[in-house]
């Protein structure tokens, strides 16, 4: 306990700020994902904290938050094979950085472009991984529902799976971005940036 106290007192303001914000972002990812599962809402919402960490701190922070989140889910919930979905989180963290301009301020135009890119990249990546790992079957009911709907219209397995992912990703990403932007605005200016 004494050593932990010593360690904490030895941390700089920046280190403390990073640690606190990143822990909050990891918690946001986990809590939102759990709420969505428990309430059977057809959304993932597990990248909200990742986007928030990227825009409040920096892309590397978003990458770490996504990594911790994916590790947690792999270890305690879904198993090690879901680790590959970190590529989706990583893409989200990197693309979320587009939201900020050179002075580290959010710009509406940039937010829209970033959201579109996040939807495209995460749909494609998760569709591809899902197809590679399970032949297109998701563990989200609504995603499978839309996949089957596309399949019944004559689309192939990959396209149907990607369509299912896309239908979910659009509202999911928009909701995540809105929440992350709210988190950014709620964060005092002195706690933002590198």
């Amino acid at each position: 306990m004494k050593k932990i106290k010593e360690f904490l007192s030895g941390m700089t303001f920046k280190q403390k700020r990073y640690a606190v914000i990143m822990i909050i972002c990891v918690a946001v990812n986990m809590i939102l994902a759990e709420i969505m599962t428990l309430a059977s809402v057809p959304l993932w919402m597990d990248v909200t904290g990742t986007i928030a960490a990227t825009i409040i701190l920096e892309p590397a922070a978003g990458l770490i938050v996504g990594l911790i989140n994916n590790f947690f889910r792999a270890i305690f919930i879904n198993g090690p094979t879901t680790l590959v979905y970190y590529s989706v989180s990583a893409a989200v963290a990197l693309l979320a950085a587009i939201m900020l301009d050179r002075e580290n301020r959010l710009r509406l135009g940039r937010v829209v472009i970033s959201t579109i890119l996040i939807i495209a990249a995460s749909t494609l990546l998760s569709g591809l991984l899902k197809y590679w790992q399970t032949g297109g079957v998701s563990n989200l009911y609504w995603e499978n529902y839309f996949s089957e709907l596309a399949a019944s219209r004559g689309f192939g397995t990959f396209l149907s799976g990607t369509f299912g992912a896309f239908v979910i990703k659009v509202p999911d990403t928009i909701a995540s971005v809105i929440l992350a932007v709210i988190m950014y605005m709620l964060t005092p200016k002195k706690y933002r940036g590198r």
Partner: protein
Amino acid sequence: MRHTIYSLIFNKDSRNWAGRAYEAMVSMAAVISIIPLMFKTWHPIFDTIDTFTLYILFLDYIMRWMVHDFRSRYGKPWAFIVYPFTPMAIVGLLCILPSLGLLDQTFRILRMFRIFKVLQYSRMFGLVVRVFEREKKTLLSVLFIAVGYIFISALAMFTNEPETFDTFYDAIYWATTALTTVGYGDVYPVSDVGKMISMVSSIFGIAVIALPAGIVTAGFMEEINSVIKEDDEKEEEKKDGSDKAEETEGSET
């Protein structure tokens, strides 16, 4: 933040205990993960080992990617784009793909590449890699000569003894095993001319085949000597520094 990660992975300073602990953790995970491959029957504990070591190796792969721009000659963002195509990253990914469920379990043999993780942290392995990089052109030309020589020997033998060697592939197989002095003895020439070709090609071939070993050994010795010299110089610099500090302390008192 990325600087902290970089120093954790690459700082070999003896004072960096976290870096040393990280290095030990990844090396141990790599070694332990290979143990299941030594057994014919699968045991449930192997799944636990596989899962546990997968987490560590995956983490190492991602963290190395995150800080690759500090080591790469390319700037951002190219360093990050190039990283998955670097030899060690390819090996690092291939060895975890079967455990990630992206490759069938028949590919679990790829796990043996995890031993490269241990070598990645080894200074000696770094020296060998440097030697190969430095002697790349020479080694390539020697390899070209060796392959050419094997091809000509095989062709001579195949034309002379088509009844012994069913296909040209058999002749290539014979030439390779004979010239590398392995000689399984399952395929061999039976005619007098064939035996003569075999003797002549073996005598000259052994010199061609032994050439790369000589080049690598010479390069390795040179590299080791330069490292020893560097270490000595650093030691002397340290000594000089501490002597000067003692002198200034003495004059002050």
